[in-house]
């Protein structure tokens, strides 16, 4: 049913339709409205057969989900940023044990400095953990991906992160088609675990594995992600059949068929990118974009196919490997090995910095004419930065950088 609701609420209702059995919640901006919504639904009786537990930390939240999932209950939690890092040990544990937990990441920057606004540094920090990572472009897709995520997780026996941009998606009110219980039931069967804690059939889960078998275990985890590459498009097709719309899948191309310049990005920024593409297309530039929905597994083959005929590829990413450069762009470059394509990195929107069509036009233009440097920090205030660098060079006791910059920004000199 079509409703004008907050993104978080849409997610909460979709998750509720998936018949979760245990939900554990620890609040962190910007995921709070999701778990609050679910908590209300459980308390009011709207969501039955579910235990909603308020835990004392994110580490506890995922740990509770690990326990309940191992005991055969469909389990869900949500977090972001600092919280995701706080549960990092448990993140690796869940995937290592193959527990099909679904977790929403309301993408948010990681401090220091503390920052509550959107970027992708949090989910990126867990990209090697073995979890599947799906990125939602819109609120509709965010809601839909959760339904697909439970199915995906339980089929493969692997946990799934559904990433949605904090505030931009979580707190935006948009029109979303919230599915019916029948649709979801038709798509998502009851949870049948691969292994379960059952007194009637005892097992020891979580053994210590030494050098003689650890490589094999990891290799098998790696293989599972390969299986996901097959399964994700299948589940996307099935979803379309039952729900009548295209959500998820490995990636989605926009006006890419004859593009010379192709832009790759994750998440909600794709909306702005597509508008910029439309503008530039109208001006005659052969440009298109690819929205990566599945970040893990990274769809190497599918992406290569889509980008193969481009001359330039611009990767716009809301994260940075400090000291190295782009994260997503490294993986894109890897996918395009051997092809004569220039791949440029545009790091944008860190800590929630607004990404404008104007700025995007600028960099896409530069890329098109081969003048985009390999690494660009979009809309960087070079003045402020050079002042701080000078300060650090001149004085040993130069003070905290963030505070210095904030002071500079307020001063008339830098306006």
């Amino acid at each position, binding site marked *: 049913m079509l409703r004008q609701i907050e993104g978080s609420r849409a997610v909460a209702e979709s998750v509720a339709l998936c018949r979760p059995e245990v939900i554990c919640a620890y609040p962190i901006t910007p995921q709070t409205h999701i778990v609050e919504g679910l908590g209300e639904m459980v308390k009011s009786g709207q969501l039955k057969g579910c235990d909603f537990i308020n835990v004392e*930390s994110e580490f*506890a939240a995922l740990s509770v989900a690990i326990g309940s999932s191992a005991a055969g*209950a469909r389990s869900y939690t949500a977090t972001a940023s600092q919280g995701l890092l706080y549960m990092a040990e448990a993140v690796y544990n869940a995937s290592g044990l193959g527990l099909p937990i679904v977790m929403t990441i309301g993408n948010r920057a990681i401090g220091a400095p503390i920052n509550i606004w959107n970027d992708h540094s949090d989910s990126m920090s867990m990209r090697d953990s073995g979890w599947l990572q799906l990125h939602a472009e819109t609120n509709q897709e965010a809601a839909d991906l959760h339904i697909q995520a439970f199915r995906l997780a339980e089929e493969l026996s692997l946990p799934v992160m559904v990433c949605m941009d904090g505030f931009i998606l979580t707190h935006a009110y948009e029109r979303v088609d919230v599915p019916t219980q029948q649709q979801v039931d038709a798509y998502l069967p009851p949870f049948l675990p691969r292994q379960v804690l059952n007194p009637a059939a005892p097992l020891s889960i979580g053994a210590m594995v030494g050098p003689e078998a650890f490589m094999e275990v990891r290799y098998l985890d790696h293989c599972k992600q390969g299986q996901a590459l097959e399964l994700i498009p299948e589940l996307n097709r099935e979803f379309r059949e039952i729900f009548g719309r295209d959500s998820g899948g490995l990636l989605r191309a926009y006006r890419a068929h004859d593009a010379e310049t192709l832009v790759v990005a994750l998440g909600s920024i794709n909306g702005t990118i597509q508008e910029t593409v439309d503008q530039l297309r109208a001006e005659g530039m052969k440009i298109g974009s690819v929205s990566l929905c599945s970040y893990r597994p990274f769809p190497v083959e599918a992406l290569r196919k889509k980008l193969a005929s481009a001359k330039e590829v611009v990767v716009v990413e809301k994260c940075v490997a400090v000291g190295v450069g782009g994260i997503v762009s490294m993986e894109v470059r890897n996918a395009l090995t051997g092809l004569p394509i220039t791949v440029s990195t545009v790091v944008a929107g860190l800590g929630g910095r607004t990404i404008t069509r104007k700025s995007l036009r600028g960099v896409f233009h530069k890329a098109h004419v081969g003048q985009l440097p390999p690494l660009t920090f979009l809309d960087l205030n070079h003045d402020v930065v050079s002042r701080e660098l000078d300060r650090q060079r001149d004085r040993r006791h130069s003070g905290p950088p963030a505070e210095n910059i904030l002071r500079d920004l307020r001063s008339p000199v830098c306006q």
Partner: protein
Amino acid sequence: MPVTEIKFYQTGTFTIGNRLLSEEERAGQSAANRANSLNCGHRACQGCGEALGARYAIDAAIRASKGQLIVANATGCLEVFSTPYPESSWQIAWMHSLFGNAAAVATGIAAAMKVKGRDDVRVLAQGGDGGTTDIGFACLSGMFERNDDVLYVCYDNEGYMNTGVQRSSATPPAARTATTPAMGSEPGNRFGQGKSIPLIAMAHQIPFVATASVANLRDLEDKIERATLMRGARYVHVHVPCPLGWGSEPSDTIKVARMAVESGLFPLFEAEYGALSAHTKIRRKVPVEEYLRLQKRFAHLFKPTTDVARVNHIQAIADRNIERFDLLN
């Protein structure tokens, strides 16, 4: 209510079994068909108090729950020596996640059982003192505060033994560990504030808190059996000597544990909803020195001469326990 002592009958209820008593009056461990939930072939050191304590406790929980038990285990000696691939010595439904989250994992399992309508299945979380008093403290306190339906059993061998005998917040004062070596002006562990998890558990006013020792099997079984059948958050703290870490003889494990109880250093008591409800009197009181001398981790207190001040300080701790928990007649 404490275990009823059966006097006379030769060894009464002091020994594990007694052919003169009926089967029901003997300890659970005397049964020929006991669960042996922690079975042979595990890699614990010779004379390991924790291996013994774990079998005692889990067998008792299995008895009480009629086999409907799921256990969540923290990282530590118990987990490592019981489940090194490809061998597991557990006979029960068991899971190990991380070092500090046994209580939270158990909360999750209990929630799953509740949701599935399996209220006959009981959930037990267990870990060493490291995983309970230090790194696991937050999850433990959270579980207490929510009164989750979990029985948490801590096997306290007073240190991080699995990683090579390092100090934990449960390490007693003056004890030598790898991170509190016996040198300098304050040899061994410092005389700090102490951290009594049983008392902290009592402050949470949970339905049941108890201390127990491998030296008093009856008492331990009784407490675990009763606790298993209660609802809500429950905590049992079991004292288990570690011959390797404590520098005691493997054959002395029970004797050392007994002396800890009989000196007053490890008081046996119970509490319900935050109020002391029972305690076990000391049977034959010993001075702490007798207990300390059995363990090389305290050897520096007696060489070259007895460090009277420190020994007296430890005695004072024991005396305070005796008074506080009314341990003498």
